[in-house]
Every structure is written in C-alpha cells, then in structure tokens.
C-alpha cells in the first residue's frame, strides 16, 4: 500500500523531470548553429528554399513558442517526425531499442554473473592467489579503453580463431552477441568485482556475521545468507547506474560491431540537428533511467527491510 503510493509518487515525479530535460535539450538544440532546413533539403538547396522551409516549419518563431508547441503536441502523443527520415520519432526509437535492450540486459547479466561470484570469492579468500589474480584482472578491465578491448576481442576471436562473427551482419545469431556483450560487460564486471569484494569484506567483519558464526552457521550460510544480501546493496546501485548507461546504448560498441542501437541513433540525430528525434531519444533515456533507478530503489526495499520501513513512514530517502 505504502509502496504503491511511493511508486506512484515517484512516477509522478517523472513529469517535471521529463519537462525539464525536454526544455534543456530543446534549448541546446535551438541555440547551437546549423538549421534543420539545410539538413532536410540537402547541400544543394538555395538560401531562399532554406528560409522558406524554416518558415514553414515554424523555426522562425521565438524559442518558447516553439517549445510550448512541442510540449502541447507531445501531450497528445505526437512527438513529431524525424527531420532525417520523416518517420515518427518513436518508430525509430523502438526499432533501435530492441537490440540495445537485449544487449544491455545480456551485458548486465554477464557482468553480474562474472562480477558477483568473483567478488565473493575474492573477499572470502582475501589475499589468496584467486583474490590477487582477480584484483589484477579487474583493474585491467576497469582501465582498458572499451574501444581497444573491443578491437582486441574482434581480432582474437574473429580474425585469429575464426570463432565468432565480428559484426552484426547477415542473420543475427546468438554468437553475434558474444563479443559486444563481452566488451560491454567486462568493464562493469570489473567494478562489480571490486565493489562486491570490498563490501563483502566489510560485511564479513560485521558483528552480526560474528553472531552467525557463533551460532555455528556454516561458511556457505554465512556468505550467502548473512553477508551477501547486505553486501549487495551498494552493488545494486552500481548495477542500476551501469544498466541505465547501457540502455543509452554505447556509441562506441555500436559503432565497432555495426549494431543499429539507440546510442548511434542519438548521436546521428544530434549530428544532423534532428531536433524532434534528439529530444525524443533523450527523453526516452531520461525516462528509462528514472525507471531503472526506481527499480533499484524498490530492490533496495525488497532486500533491506530498514529501507522499506523508511518508505512506509513516508520519509524521502533521496531525490532520485
């Protein structure tokens, strides 16, 4: 009940966020040089034609007029058509989002599947060779540029071993996802390893873990029942943030593997001054991120009864 109210409150909070984001994006797009008419008409258009099209599109109206027109139309569900392709902006977003979403979910799952267990082992066997090796590997993957990592993976697995496809061409098979997912997940996995490790180390030293030991609980129960849930709380935040980032599509990885994702769409729209498309992309991302953070908060409440109690009391934990 309280939770439901809390969720509704948080979702309502989305409106001002989206409004603010749209205003900022709209503003930035409007006050940077270049105009959409040139983009639509192409390089051979004359000045007169450009001016005329700008007039037709209402580009000569004051900024606020244009913005409120946009908001009014958006409220009726019309976010405009892309200047570039003339298609409704959300058609394009949804066409691209599927693959970004799949990639993001897979990457985050792989990162968790790699990061959390290794983090746990690292913490439980602190200063062992496993800990040492995993720390070094984690540092390595946290430090290498994604671009380089992707190319190395491609060169090794595609070119040398001829095992995996390097780009998203032809019929997309699960194999196609392996390299991009690896590229995306290794960095995140590295930070999850480090965070899980340090949190586990901290939790293992807590008094209640000692209480559990004094009860005669087995090592497994101590790790999974008593430590992990507590240690995972901060990790979940990082996972949420990384997931939000992955949802935005990672331009670099998309570019390298030729993935038609959301990131490349956003960048292409910005480059071509496609205001409706850019605004819609960024609004969509803002929405997704707020949504993900809400999910993270709810997960927190699920894991930690203290947080749930705080919601129940109606105390705001933090703004977003």
């Amino acid at each position, binding site marked *: 009940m309280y939770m439901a109210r809390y969720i509704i409150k948080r979702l309502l909070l989305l409106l001002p966020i989206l409004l603010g984001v749209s205003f900022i994006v709209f503003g930035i797009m409007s006050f940077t040089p270049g105009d959409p008419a040139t983009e639509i008409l192409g390089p051979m258009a004359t000045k007169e034609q450009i001016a005329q099209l700008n007039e037709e599109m209402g580009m000569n109206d004051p900024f606020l007029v244009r913005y409120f027109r946009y908001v009014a139309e958006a409220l009726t569900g019309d976010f405009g058509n892309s200047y570039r392709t003339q298609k409704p902006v959300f058609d394009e977003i949804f066409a691209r989002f599927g693959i970004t979403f799949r990639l993001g979910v897979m990457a985050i799952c792989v990162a968790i599947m790699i990061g959390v267990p290794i983090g746990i082992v690292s913490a439980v066997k602190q200063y062992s060779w496993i800990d040492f090796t995993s720390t070094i590997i984690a540092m390595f993957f946290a430090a290498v540029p994604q671009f380089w990592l992707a190319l190395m993976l491609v060169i090794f697995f595609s070119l040398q071993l001829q095992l995996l496809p390097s780009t998203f061409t032809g019929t997309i*098979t699960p194999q196609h996802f392996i390299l991009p997912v690896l590229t995306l997940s290794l960095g995140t996995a590295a930070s999850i390893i480090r965070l899980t490790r340090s949190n586990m180390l901290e939790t293992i030293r807590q008094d209640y873990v000692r209480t559990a030991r004094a009860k005669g609980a087995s090592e497994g129960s101590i790790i999974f029942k008593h430590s992990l849930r507590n240690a995972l709380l901060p990790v979940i935040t990082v996972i949420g943030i990384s997931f939000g980032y992955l949802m935005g599509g990672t331009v670099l990885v998309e570019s390298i593997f030729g993935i038609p994702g959301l990131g490349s769409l956003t960048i292409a729209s910005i480059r071509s001054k496609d205001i409706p498309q850019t605004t819609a992309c960024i609004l969509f991302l803002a929405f997704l991120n707020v949504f993900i953070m809400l999910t993270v908060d709810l997960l927190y409440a699920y894991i930690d009864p203290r947080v749930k109690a705080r919601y129940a009391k109606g105390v705001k934990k933090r703004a977003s």
Partner: protein
Amino acid sequence: MRNQKKFFAVLFVFVMVLSLFAGCSPKTDVKDEYQTPTPALKDTIKMAVYSDFKSFDPYNSGMTLDKVVYTNIFDTLLRYYNGEFEKVLVTDYTVSEDGTVYTFKLKDNVKFHNGEKLTANDIVFSMERAKTSNQMANYTKSIAKVEAVDALTAKITLEKPYVPFLNAVASTVCIMNEKAVKAAGDQVNLKPVGTGPYTFVKWDAGAQVVLERFADYHGEKPQIKTATYVVLTNPETALIATQNKEIDLTYTIPSVAAEQIKKDGKLTLDLNPTMGSGYIVMNLEAPFINDVNFRKALAYATNREEIVAYGMDGIAEVSTHLYDEQTVGFTGEIHIPEYNVEKAKEFLAKTTYAGEVIPFKVGYENYKKIGIVYQEQLKKVGINISVELLEANTWVSDMKSGNYSMSTIVQTVDPDVALWSTILHSNAIGGYNFSRLDDEEVDTAFDTGASVLDPVQRKAAYAPIEKKLYEDVVVIPIYRRVVTACYNPSLSIERAFNNGFSAVQDMAWTK
C-alpha cells in the same frame, strides 16, 4: 514458502535472460554463413557503408549513400559515365536545334517493380515531381513543359537553352511510377519502386538495406541475386569483417591500413576517384587573405603531394583543378601556381603580413590532419596558421556566415561547370559560396554559359571562371577525393561511377 518464492524469482530471471538469447536465434536453416564456404558461385553480396541511410526517395535525399542504394532501384533516362551518355531507358533521343526541346524514345519492354509497364506518362510524372522538389528545383526550373507524345515518346520543352540538361536532369531524375508513388503515400522514402535491376526488400534502420534482383529487368540480368548494404561506422571492424569474409566489400577502411592491404594482396583495394574536389577554401573578405599576393604566396607554398601523402595517408588523388576534363565546359587553360617556396616568399614580401596567426577552422578530425600538415608547409615560408577543430554544425555555420579565414573542404558538384555556380556565384554568398567570391565576370559566365550550345563557345564562356579561380587564387585545389573499395578478390567490379561507388549490376562473382 519464502524459499520457494525466491527460487521461482531466480528461475524467472534466468528464463528471461535465456529468452533474450533465444529471441535472436535464427528460425531454422541459416547456418553461420560467415564461415561455411559456398561450393557454387556465390550470388549474394554484402557491402559495408560508413553511415546510415536517410531516405530512398530520390528527390528528398542529399546523401551520397542513399544514391548509391537507389541507383540500383531506379533507372534514369540516360547515364553519364566517362564523358559519355549511355542510353538506359531510351532507344534514342534528340535535341532541337535551339536546344530547347528534348525528345526521348522509350524502350518498349521496361517494367516497374510493381508490374506496371513504363510509358511516357511515367516520364511526365517523374519530371513534374522533380520540378516540385526543393533539391531538384535548381536544375529542373528550366523545364517549361513535359508531354507524352505517344505511349513511348516523351517530349520535354525548356524555357531557354540549358546545356547541362542531359547531365543534371536526364541522367539524374529517377523515373518513378505514379501508381507506386500514390500507393506508398507518405512513405515514398521507405518504399522505392523503380525500373532498375534490383528491387527494394527492406531497410533495417541503422543496420542494413537489402535488395533483390528484379526478375523482369529490361537489361542484362546481373549475376548477383541479393545485395545487402550493411552500416558499419567503424572502419577497423569493417575491414576486419571483410578480412573475415563476413562481408564482401567495404567502402570504408582505416586509411592507415591501405598500404598493408595492398601488400598482403588478400583483398582487392580500389581507389575510385570521385568528382569530390578537396581544396583550401579561403574567406576573401578576411584580413591578409583579401590580398591576392598573400593568396599567391599560399598557393606557391602548397605542396599537394605531401598533403595527400601525410594528411590523407595517400588515400586521394593529387589534383591541381577544382574541376577537370570530366566536367563539361572545363577549359584547362589556366593553372594554379606550382609548389615553389622561393616564389611564395617573394609574394609574401609584397604583403603587409608580419607573422600574425591565421585561424584554420575545420569541422572534422580528418580535415584537422590536413590542416596540421599544411601548417608545417606554411611555416616554411613564414605564414602561421592555427588549426582549430570545431563541432561540425558550428563549423558549417561559421563557414556560411564568413566567420572564418581559412579551411579545407570537399565539394562535390555534378559534372557540368554550370553546376559549380552553387559554390562560386555571388548569389550563393551566405550559402555554399564559402569563399564569398563576388565577381561580376564570374557571375555573368555562370548566368550565360549554361545556354551556349556549341561546346567550344561554351568553354570560352566559362573561361573567366577558371581564370579567376587560379590566377587570383580563389581556391587552392589539393586533391580529388577517392572512395576506397576493398573487397574479396573473387569479386569483379566492372566500373565505378564518378561518385566513387559502383552499381550492383556491375559486380559479379568470378570464383
């Protein structure tokens, strides 16, 4: 109870993740194409291009890549290649004495992809549609009337003689079918229907365009059945994918890799010259640059070979002309000054320049590289420039408004001198006349030249333009842009057009 709930929660997540993988697995057959060798002669091709497409409505796209695709789908009346006009949809055509009436006799057996037969009405429809297009208006505005004389004869009447007509209109306007256009509604750009050798299958935004051989094509049947243009924005992976045989041809490679590809010999590398002219563009109103002696000093100080070799990794063709003999109306009588450091210093001495730093604004990383090489060259004669990389839109905007001194750019203009007016005519100042050239003689040459029918007289009419360009050093031409086509050696490509790209019908597997 609690544990059971947890177990199901975990199971649910697991199944969801699995289904994500499952969702992308193929339905049945297609087994890892990228590694299974094909025993019979291959009839599919995958080509990598460097950016996504925009629109396949021929009149509403300014992008080269769109044209690369729709060239396969649409036919034009004629096709310009290597200085000649090939007859594509016509058996014959005539031009009236005064150059105002063009009559086209259409082939009899031509079918659109939607099954409709090509008639003169389609020519009327297409020309009229082109007239209303913003992008085509510049070229089609000369058309006074388009008529269907009979089912297979179309007559186009111009208001006044317009010599570039064959080039700018007859070879450019894609012939479309009225019925198909009506059927597509506002999705003409997504459902192109032409008479070309390939039909449009699908466009996965951001990913690929698939074309299929048209069974009823009126011309010679191409060898390749299915052609896919794949968007691979990263040149490294495009090359790797080609090496890996995941794709058969890439139009984008890392420029530094060219030497290695040539040496390896495992892939064929063509450097297809284009009509794109790369040059040093100068704002004639900027300080120092407004002095012709200063510009001459710049011209003499320019070492083209070096710029191409180091600034472009050799992926370009050195050029001393903004446009050359491929362009109708080109005279070739006047040349830009040759590289000569002594002369450069000599001319520089005649100016008031005293080592001031002149900004060299560029909008792209690859232009910056050129700028840096050029900076070194100019330093030798005592001219200092600073290379500044701007955001692309800002850069274009600065160029248009004249808020710059020097830059470098590539301009591609269709092959008739008349068409170069868009960047050199005074009425294009504020538009693409980045040089801000405001010369009456040049303007007059453009205004009258297009209607001179006799080729020799036409050259004479255009001569003042080249004179102005090179004697007064309005531009410093550096190179001709090339398109790198790197492909499987089993593939043969008959020819590349002047945009550097080839049509699929000109490609064939030989092995």
